[in-house]
Structure formats: structure tokens, C-alpha cells
């Protein structure tokens, strides 16, 4: 039997494979522009969307992607909170295994949980986000969004700004962007950065003004209040002063630079309401909605890969 094609992180994929994904995503994106947005590629396949943590956009994005490929998708929402958590989670895995299915998409609030989960199920597993660890499909859709805007990825200057410590998007993005030869800089205050971030292999700044006029891609992270177990950042006022993107800073961005955010945006924290409201007029520059639509095509490509 062939090894099952889990997508737990993008570490296992070579630069060539990533480039291949980007090209394939183009053809799936093309399907989404047709009148009849459906192909029979995964007809007869059953996919389970298993979310141990609340999610709207990622869950819906996977659901649309699966349906566009004619797979049957079942949403399985479960909260994982009980005193002896182990029992209920192991039983959930057994339950899922007993239902005939071909692939499981999973999100969980604990880093590394999905690695453990994947060892205990016989079908391919796609990581839809685990704790503060990885969010590989987000990273690939981010890369695809950048790829659609710049002909050459190499040496592209990208600044990732905000709560790096608690962000799985940052961890997956940094690794993928580094792999593709991009020039990554992270911007965060000390308490929202790991103490030792040498594993990230990036440059570092602690003020948005150091990168604003130089970056080709400005990637604003969501302030993860729900994931911050120890709250040390002083205030939103302080954040606005040193890390937020307001209109004045938006105007300092390079002419061809783009603005991204994994969503949902905390208006007035990472990005000001004013900037958010000009997105429709500045589609060339503000790519937040483009990321969402690109997400469907990228997830189609990944589901197709894992099941073929």
C-alpha cells in the first residue's frame, strides 16, 4: 500500500512540488470562474471536516472546495472539554474511523495534536490548523496570492507583523516563504515573539515604521486575544502607535506593494477601519478578500493531491 498523503505541514514538499501546486491551483481557479463550478474529480469520495475549534472561513472554504470537486463532505463539530479529555478524544477518533471516509480535514486548538491524530487514522489527514503550530493550507493560499501579484518570488521583501508568538499562520508562512527564497522579516514587540526565534531564520524589527516603505508584501497578523494565555501587551493604544496600519502608513507603502491579512481582521487594531473600507477601490493593493477566494482553489488542489 502506498503511504497515505497527509498534509500536516509543507515541510515535506520540495520547491518543485510547491511550484507544481501553484500551477495546478491556476487550473482549479479557472473552474471557479465557469458557469457550472463543479467537476467530477472526487465523485464518490467522502471527506470529513472535523473541527475541534470554532472556525468559519477555513471550514467553509474546505466545504466549498470539496463540493466543487463533487466529494461528499460531512461537517463534524465537536468541542473537546471534559476532565479526562483523553477518553473522549480517543473515542472520537474511533467513531470517525468506523464511518467509511476517504479523507479527514482537522483543526484542533493544541499544537501537535494533528500529528498524533494522523498516526491513529488510516486515511489522509489535512491540517486545517493546530494550536500555535501549523496552518499549511493558509500558507499555500498566501503564497498563491503573492504569486499572482509578482512574477518572481525570489528575494521578494515580505514583512509579517503582529502576534508572532501565538500565530500558526506566521509559523507556516515563514517556513514556506523562506523555502521559496523570499526575504522575510518579522515585526513584533518582545512579548509577542518567542524568546528564541532562531529556528525561524528571519530578520527582526519591532516597529512597523522600519518596514512600511520597503516591503513588497505587508502581512498583518490577527491579534490572537483568544490564544494569548499570558497577556502582557499593554494596550491597543500602544499597539496602534507602533504596529498598526492606519491611513498614513498605508500611503507610505511602495507603489506595487500588497497588503494581506489571514482574517478575520480586528478593525482598529491591526488595520484601521478607514483602510479596511477602501478595499473595493484598492483591489490591486489590498488582497484580503482575494486571499479568501484563492483559498478555495488552493484547497481544491490540495484535496485533489491527497486523494489521487
Amino acid at each position: 500500500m502506498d503511504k497515505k498523503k497527509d498534509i500536516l505541514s509543507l515541510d515535506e514538499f520540495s520547491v518543485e512540488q510547491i511550484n507544481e501546486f501553484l500551477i495546478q491551483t491556476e487550473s482549479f481557479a479557472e473552474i471557479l470562474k465557469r458557469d457550472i463550478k463543479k467537476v467530477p474529480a472526487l465523485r464518490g469520495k467522502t471527506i470529513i471536516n472535523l473541527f475541534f475549534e470554532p472556525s468559519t472561513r477555513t471550514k467553509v472554504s474546505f466545504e466549498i472546495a470539496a463540493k466543487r470537486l463533487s466529494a461528499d463532505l460531512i461537517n463534524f463539530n465537536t468541542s473537546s472539554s471534559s476532565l479526562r479529555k483523553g477518553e473522549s478524544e480517543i473515542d472520537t477518533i474511533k467513531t470517525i474511523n468506523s464511518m467509511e471516509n476517504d479523507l479527514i480535514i482537522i483543526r484542533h486548538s493544541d499544537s501537535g495534536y494533528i500529528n498524533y491524530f494522523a498516526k491513529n487514522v488510516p486515511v489522509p489527514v489535512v491540517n486545517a490548523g493546530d494550536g500555535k503550530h501549523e496552518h499549511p493550507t493558509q500558507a499555500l493560499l498566501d503564497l498563491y496570492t503573492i504569486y499572482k501579484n509578482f512574477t518572481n518570488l525570489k528575494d521578494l521583501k515580505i514583512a509579517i507583523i503582529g502576534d508572532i508568538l501565538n500565530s500558526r499562520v506566521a509559523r507556516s508562512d515563514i517556513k514556506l516563504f523562506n523555502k521559496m527564497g523570499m526575504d522575510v522579516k518579522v515585526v513584533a514587540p518582545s512579548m509577542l515573539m518567542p524568546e528564541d526565534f532562531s529556528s525561524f531564520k528571519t530578520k527582526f524589527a519591532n516597529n512597523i515604521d522600519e518596514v512600511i516603505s520597503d516591503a513588497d508584501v505587508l502581512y498583518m497578523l490577527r491579534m490572537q486575544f483568544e490564544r494569548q494565555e499570558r497577556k502582557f501587551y499593554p494596550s491597543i493604544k500602544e499597539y496602534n502607535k507602533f504596529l498598526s496600519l492606519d491611513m498614513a502608513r498605508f500611503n507610505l507603502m511602495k507603489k506595487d506593494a500588497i497588503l494581506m491579512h489571514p482574517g478575520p481582521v480586528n478593525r482598529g487594531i491591526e488595520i484601521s477601519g478607514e483602510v479596511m473600507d477602501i478595499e473595493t477601490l484598492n483591489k490591486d493593493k489590498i488582497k484580503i478578500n482575494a486571499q479568501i477566494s484563492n483559498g478555495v482553489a488552493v484547497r481544491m488542489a490540495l484535496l485533489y493531491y491527497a486523494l489521487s
Partner: protein
Amino acid sequence: MEFENLKSKNKENLIIKKGFVINPQTQEKFEADILILDGKISKISKDITHNNADSVREINAEGLYVCPGFVDMHVHLREPGNEEEEDVESGVRSALRGGITSIACMPNTMPVLDSCYLIEYIKIKAREINYNIYPVAAITKNLQGEVLNEIGLLINSGAVAFSDDGRGVQNARLMYEAMRYGGQFKALFILHEEDGNFSDGGLVNEGYYSAMLGLEGISSLSEDLMVQRDIMLSKVSGARIHITHISSAKSVELIARAKAEGVNITCDTTCEHLFFNDSVLTGYDTNYKIKPPIRSEYDRLAIIEGLRNGTIDAIASDHAPHLLLEKNISFKEASFGSIGLETLFKASLTKLFYEEKLSLEKIISLISLNPAKILNIEGGEIKVGSIANIAIIDINNENIYESDNIISRSKNSSFIGQRLNGEIRYTIVNGKIGFSNN
């Protein structure tokens, strides 16, 4: 592999033939026979002859080393309260499997060992099975860190030392008063050093791997600050303190300096901290989730150096049994701790003798004589007249440590899958063979 019924009262006379005797007190190794009559060592010399009328059972120790039985000063027996994980008897069998003849058990049971009757309960249990168990009482009531326990009464009941293991006393003033009062009774404090403000919510060592894996970190400052605090408190109060399971390079340095200044301080580390660094966490294996966390290679090397130069006095197992369902779970939800009685000797031998080239005598001291001296209990020596607590070991054996080999009721060992050197052939407790394996 055989365990003998420790409850039976019949005493057996033994003679250990042709073994290499290790005496940590003198740091000597020599070939000799040992005659054990009525539970005590009655003769140590070459070629002891005996007549069969004495009904002396002979143990052939040719090619084996005969050591003082090992002393593990940091064990969680889980009785009373969590007998599904371990109880006194299963813990003792696990200890016998590891060549250990004396253990100090920690008070974080349910209920907590903070009352005289509970200390006496453990002592009675130990006597019933003819094994050496030294209960450690809690420093504060119910380990809450708020009210000081009856130090004097607990010592009278048989508490060997005091510890709020599992958390540590967060309140510096309370710790200071405990040390001042404990001094009146010459109490020993075994200190778990952890500043909860640094460690709460943390899962692994704060560093390269915590950042990479997205796991909450525990800075070594959590330990170092408390070590420094308690050194200062000991200096002023004069209390005898023992820092348990030290994990960081900085703690080793602080303790070395305190010793040089004459502070009444000793310390131990665990097999995990001398054996592993935090790169083992990349597979999210929950058996590596322990407290204090497995730290960086830099810290591990400092631990090794501390063992070599005598800053670290002892190695303890911090045997912490947990049910499978507390470990076969996400890393975040899993319990902290690894069992270790059965690997105390093997892991020490593998890393310190075969890799780091410490002498066998030195290693045996770290797991027998030194902890016995710190606890002020009998043990750690092989000498005429003393009660026969002996481990007979084979250092040439080498095996992959497997879950199926584990005697403890719990199977959560960090060493599963490791190639380990050494094997215990006999464990003799209070003059009786408790375990044999030929």
C-alpha cells in the same frame, strides 16, 4: 526474572561468590566474596568457605559487580489515592527491578502526606513488605503553600525530609519561616524550584524548539530565580536544603557558587535531564513532557559537568507514574512526568559511564552513597556489620528498552525505544533476595 515474596519472614543466609565489590565510600573496586548471615553482612574477603549445614544460598557473581543497593531520593508512589497508577507494592517491585533498595517517597498523594498518621501509614506498609521507604512530608498543609505543617511532629513520626514537590513554595516569607523553624529540628528541605508566574501554562523548555513547535515555553528563569531565592534564605536561616531535579545550566552555576561559599546545600538531577535535550520534542511524544522540562543541549552539558565535578550530588528518578489516558492525548493536555525507577541505573550507566567516561565507582556513589548521606539514612556502603542492601549488576548487557519490559503499573517512560546498557541481576533488600534475573 523472579520477584520473591518480601512478606515472608524466613531469613535466608547468602553468600555472594567471586563478584567485584564496589565501595563508593573508599572509591575502591576489588574481587571478594560476601557472606550474609541473619540479614547482615558478616564477612567480606576472598574465597570464603562455608559448610552446607549453615544452609547458605550461593549466588554466583562471577563477572558481575556487587554494589550497595541503590537509593532513590525522589519517587512518587501514588498511594494513597491513585493506586490505579502505582501503589506501594507495585512501586517497590519496580524499584527492585532497578536495583534500588531504599526510596524516599514524595507527599503529593491524595490525601497529601501532611499528617502524622499518613507518614506512619507509609512506614507500616514498608515494614509489611520488608522494604526501606522513607516518606517525605509536605512543607505546607495540603501543598497549598499557605500554612506551615507540624514539622516537629512529622519528624517524630518518621518523615525523612520536607518538600512541596510538584509546585514549590511560592511565598518567600513562608519558605523563610519554614527554614528557620525546620532548623530547630535539623530538618532537610527537598526543594522543587519553580516560579509559577514563569511556568504556568508552559509545556516545554522555552527556546528554539518551543518556538518551532508552537508549544508554550517554561523559561529556565522559573527554576533559577527560586534556586537563587532559596540559597539566600538558607544563608540567613542556616537550613539544610537540597534542590531536587535541577535542569538548567544557571542553576548548576548558582549551586556551585553557593557550595563554595559554604551554604548548606546539595542537589540532584534526573536521568532525563542528563540524557536528553529538547530536540526530542519534535515528535510531540508526551513521554518527554516532564517538569522541570527537558532543556537545551547547553543545559544538559552543564548538568553532565556538574555531575563530573561534584556540584551535583545525586541522581534521582523522579518516578512519576501516569495512566495511559493521561499520556495518549495531545501534548498540551498530557500530564507531566515519566517513570524512572527501572532505568535509574541503566540510563546513568549508558550516558555517564559509556559516553562520558565517568568511573563506575563515581556513578554508583551518585545513586547510592550520596543520596543516603543527604537523607541521613543507612545505605550506600558495603561493610561488615551493616544490613545487607545490595545490587548485583552486569554492565556488559545492552538492550532496547521496551514498554513490555516495564514492571511499574504505569508505562510512561521517556526511555522507551532507547538503547540502554547494564542489567540488574540481583537486588538484595534487608538480607533477602527481592529480585533476581539470570
